[in-house]
C-alpha cells in the first residue's frame, strides 16, 4: 500500500516537472538567449513586500540591481524605484511545442526593470529561464537516446535470445565490443569530422543518437535473458507445436514478456543519458551557445572563480536532484511492480 503511494507521488511530481518544462516559454519571463550586458552575474532578485519606507504592499515587488562603483560582479539594490511583479504579462515571443506563437508570460516586471529569480550568468541571461528551456533540450536528449538504446537493444536481444547459436555469439560478443568502446573519443571524432554547415542543434541531435546507439548492449543482454527463459515456457512450445511462425511467436508470446524490463530500463536510462549530455557539454560537445541545456548550466561551475564567487550558479544543480531522484524512485517502483506481476 505504501509502495503504491510512493509510486504515485513520484509520478505526479515528475509529470509536474515535465509539464513545467514543456511550458517553458510561458513560465520563463525571458528568452534563454536574451543578454543583459549590464547584469553579468547578478544575484537572484529579492522579492519584497515591505518597501524602503517601511510600507507593506500586497503585491510583491523587486528593486533593480545596480553595479557597485564599477566593480565587476558586485551589485546593490537601487531602492529608488520599485517594480511590482505582474502576472500574465506580454514579453518576448516564444512558441509552445514549436507551433503556437505567444507573447504571454506567467510573470514579469515592467521594463526597464528585470526579475531574475535564480540570478544571471556571465552574459546577464536569466538563469531561471535558461533552466526551463535547458530542460527541453536535456530531457529530449535523455528520452531520444534512451529510446534508441531500448529499441536497438530489444531487436538485438530478441534475435540473440530467440535464435541462439552462432547468431547469439556474434551479437553478444559484438555487444561486449560496444561496451568496451571509448565512446568519448568516438564523439570527438564525429564532431571534428562534421561539416561546418550543420547547425549546432543538428550536431547535438546526431551526438545524442550516437550515444543512444552505443548504449544498446546492456538492455540487449537483459532482454536476451528474458527471451531465453520465455522461449522454453510451455505455452511457447505449445504455440510452436501448433505451427506458429517465428515472427508470430516473438510478437505474440515473447515480446510482451520483455515490456516490463524495457520500461524499467527506460526509466534508468533516461537520467543516465541526461547526465551523458552534461558530460558532453563539459567537454565542449554539447549544444552550442546561445542555447541552454542543463549541461551548459552546470558546465559554468567547472571554473573555480565561478564556484567560489557566485553561489546562485549552484541552484540549477540543486533543482536537478529531485528530478534524478524521481526517475530512480520510479524505476525502483516499476521494477517491483514488474516482479510482482511476474510472480
Amino acid at each position, binding site marked *: 500500500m505504501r509502495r503504491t503511494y510512493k509510486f504515485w507521488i513520484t509520478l505526479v511530481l515528475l509529470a509536474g516537472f515535465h509539464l513545467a518544462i514543456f511550458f517553458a516559454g510561458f513560465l520563463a519571463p525571458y528568452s534563454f538567449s536574451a543578454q543583459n550586458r549590464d547584469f553579468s552575474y547578478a544575484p537572484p532578485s529579492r522579492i519584497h513586500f515591505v518597501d524602503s519606507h517601511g510600507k507593506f504592499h500586497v503585491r510583491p515587488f523587486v528593486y533593480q540591481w545596480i553595479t557597485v562603483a564599477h566593480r565587476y560582479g558586485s551589485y546593490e539594490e537601487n531602492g529608488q524605484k520599485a517594480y511590482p511583479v505582474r502576472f500574465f504579462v506580454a514579453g518576448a515571443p516564444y512558441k509552445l511545442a514549436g507551433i503556437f506563437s505567444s507573447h504571454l508570460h506567467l510573470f514579469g516586471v515592467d521594463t526597464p526593470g528585470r526579475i531574475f529569480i535564480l540570478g544571471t550568468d556571465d552574459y546577464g541571461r536569466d538563469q531561471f529561464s535558461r533552466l526551463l528551456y535547458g530542460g527541453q533540450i536535456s530531457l529530449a536528449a535523455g528520452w531520444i537516446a534512451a529510446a534508441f538504446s531500448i529499441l536497438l537493444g530489444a531487436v538485438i536481444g530478441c534475435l540473440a535470445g530467440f535464435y541462439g547459436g552462432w547468431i547469439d555469439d556474434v551479437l553478444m560478443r559484438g555487444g561486449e565490443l560496444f561496451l568496451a568502446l571509448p565512446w568519448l573519443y568516438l564523439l570527438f571524432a564525429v564532431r571534428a569530422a562534421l561539416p561546418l554547415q550543420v547547425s549546432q542543434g543538428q550536431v547535438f541531435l546526431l551526438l545524442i543518437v550516437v550515444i543512444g546507439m552505443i548504449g544498446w548492449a546492456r538492455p540487449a543482454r537483459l532482454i536476451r535473458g528474458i527471451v531465453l527463459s520465455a522461449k522454453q515456457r510451455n505455452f511457447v512450445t505449445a504455440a510452436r507445436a501448433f505451427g506458429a511462425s517465428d515472427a508470430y511467436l516473438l510478437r505474440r508470446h515473447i515480446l510482451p514478456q520483455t515490456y516490463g524490463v524495457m520500461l524499467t530500463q527506460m526509466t534508468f536510462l533516461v537520467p543516465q543519458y541526461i547526465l551523458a549530455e552534461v558530460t558532453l557539454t563539459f567537454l565542449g560537445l554539447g549544444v*552550442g551557445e546561445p542555447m541552454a541545456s542543463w549541461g551548459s548550466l552546470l558546465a559554468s561551475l567547472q571554473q573555480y572563480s565561478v564556484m567560489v564567487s557566485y553561489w546562485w550558479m549552484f541552484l540549477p544543480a540543486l533543482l536537478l536532484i529531485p528530478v534524478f531522484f524521481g526517475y530512480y524512485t520510479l524505476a525502483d517502483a516499476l521494477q517491483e511492480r514488474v516482479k510482482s506481476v511476474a510472480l
Partner: protein
Amino acid sequence: MPKAATKRRALVCLAMILVAALYLANTRAAQQKEDVMVTSNALGRPGGTLTLAVRSDPKTLNPVLAVDETTREIIDCMNADLIHINRETQQPEAALAKSWSISHDGETYTLHIRRGLRFSDGQPLTADDVVFSFQLYLDEKIDSPQRDLLMVGGKPISVEKIDDYTVRFHLAQPYAAAERLFDGLAILPKHLLESAYKAGTFAQSWGVSAAPDQFAGLGPFRLKEYVPGQRIVLERNPYYWKVDGTGRRLPYIDTLVFLFVPSEDAQVIRFQAGDTDLLSRFSAADFSVLQREQAAKGYQLEDLGSGLEYNFLFFNLNNLDGKNLPAITRKQSWFRDVRFRQAVSAAIDRDGIVRLVYEGRATPLWSQVTPGNKLWLNTALVQPAQSLEHARELLRGASFSWSSSGALLDPSRQPVEFSILTSSSNAERTKMATLIQDDLSKLGMNVHIVPLDFQSMVARLLNSFDYEAAIMGLASGDVDPTSDMNVWLSNGGTHLWNLTESKPATAWEAEINQLMNEQLVTLNYGQRKLLYDRVQQIVADELPVICLASPHVLVGASRRVGNFHPSILEPSALWNIDELYVH
C-alpha cells in the same frame, strides 16, 4: 699552562686571519679578472627557496631544441644570452657581451664578450663557445626553431671568431634592431656538447633524463633534480656573472622549484594555499578571486595593463580552388568585400567584450599593436564606438538587404549565415564568440559558434581551410615589428586569413609587404615607426583581422618575495629571477 693555551689561541687566530686575508685577496683578484656585471637592483637577502608552478613537464632541457613556453621558461633560468632585452625598458642591453658595435652599412656586428666568465661547471667561457653555439642554431640538420630568426635576407647569419673574447656577425643585408635577435639564444658549453654534435647525436643530448652533471650553463641556476610528473629543482649557479651593488654574487635564491600543475584553477588554488610564490598567466576572474583575499593573505597582485596579446576575428580569404568547398567559396564573396568586414567590425561591442570576458582587465583593440607596446603603437588610429547604424549603412552600400523577418540577405538574396570556429579549451575566446554572435544577430546575421579542440581547429585553419571565420589570439615575443613579419608578409607562415598567396592577392597586402620589408632594412627608429604606423592603419581599414581586445598581464607573488617587478614581456614574473629574494 694557561699561558701556553693563550699563546696557542693567539697563533691559531693569526693563522685564521692570514688565511682569510689570502682568500679575500684571491677572490678579489678573481673578480677583477672576471668582467662581472654590476646590477642596480635593491639589495636582497641571500638564501631560501622560491617555488612556482608551470603547466607541464619540460619536453627537453636543450635550449637549441626547445619549442614550447613551459620548456623555455625553465631553460631560460639556466642559460644566458649575449645581448638581452631588458623586460622593463624593452631595450636591448649588454649581457654576456659587454659591448657591441655596428658597422656603418649595418651588416656587421662586433661583440666583445665579458672576460673570465665561467659556466656553471667552472669551465671558462670563450669565443669558441659562442661560435659553436651559433653553429648549432644554424645547422639545418638540427632544425632549431630559432634558425628562421637567424636568416636575414634569405641567408644565414655568419659568425667569425676574432680573438678569444671577440666575435663578429655578418648579415647579408642591413637588419633593423638586429641586436634584438640575440635575446634568448643561449650560449652553450663547447666542452660538453661538441662530441655529441660531431657524433651526430646532438638531438638526443640534454634530454630530460640526462644527469645534472652533464649540464652546464651561464644562467643564474643549474639543474639539481628532475622528478617526472612532479617537479624540477634548480640550484644557485655559484659562477653566475652578475653581482649586486655590494659585490655580492647573484642570484640571491638558493633553490628554485618548478612544480608541474596542469590546470590554471589548480595553480590558483596552490598559490592561494601558499604552496607557490609566483603566479602568472591567469584569468581576470581568478584575479578577482585572489583580490578578495589579498588583505588577509597579503599577496602582491599586479595588473600591468595591456600586454602584447591581441585577439581577433578573421574570415577565410584563402583561395579555395580545387578544395571542393562550394558553400564556403560562395560566402567568400561577402568575406572579400571590405564593407562586409567593416560592418562586422562596427557591430562588435568591444567594450562589452572587455567588461564581460575580462572583467574590465583588457583593452579594446582596433588594430594589431596593443597599448602595451608603447614604442610602436600608432596613437593616431581612430577607435570608432559600436554603431549598428553605420554597420547597416555599409551593408546597404554593398547591396545587402533585409527580409521581412529581419534576416540579412546577400546581393543574390541568400540569407547571411556563417560559423565561427573557436578553441573549446579557451573559454575566453568562446565567450567573445558568444557576444559577437549576439551583436551580429542584431544585423540579421545568423552566426553559429563551432568550438573544436585545438588540434582540429588548427588543422582546419592551416591545412584544409575548411572554415568560414575563426577567433584566434597571437602574442609577439617582442615589441619590435620584426617579430611579427610572418603574420604580415603575404607569404608568411602565420598569414592566417590567406595562406595560399603566391603573390599578394590585394593591393593593400602588396603595400603591407613593401612596408614590412622596408622597415626591416631601415635602421632609423623614427622612419621605421612611420612605416609601421602605416601598416597598422591598413590593418584597421582593410580588416584582414578584426582586432577585438588585448588582455592585461596579471601576475601575483607571495608576500615574502622581494624585488618583484613584473613586466608585460614574457616571462613576466621571472625575468629578473636573479634579483628576486625571499624574506
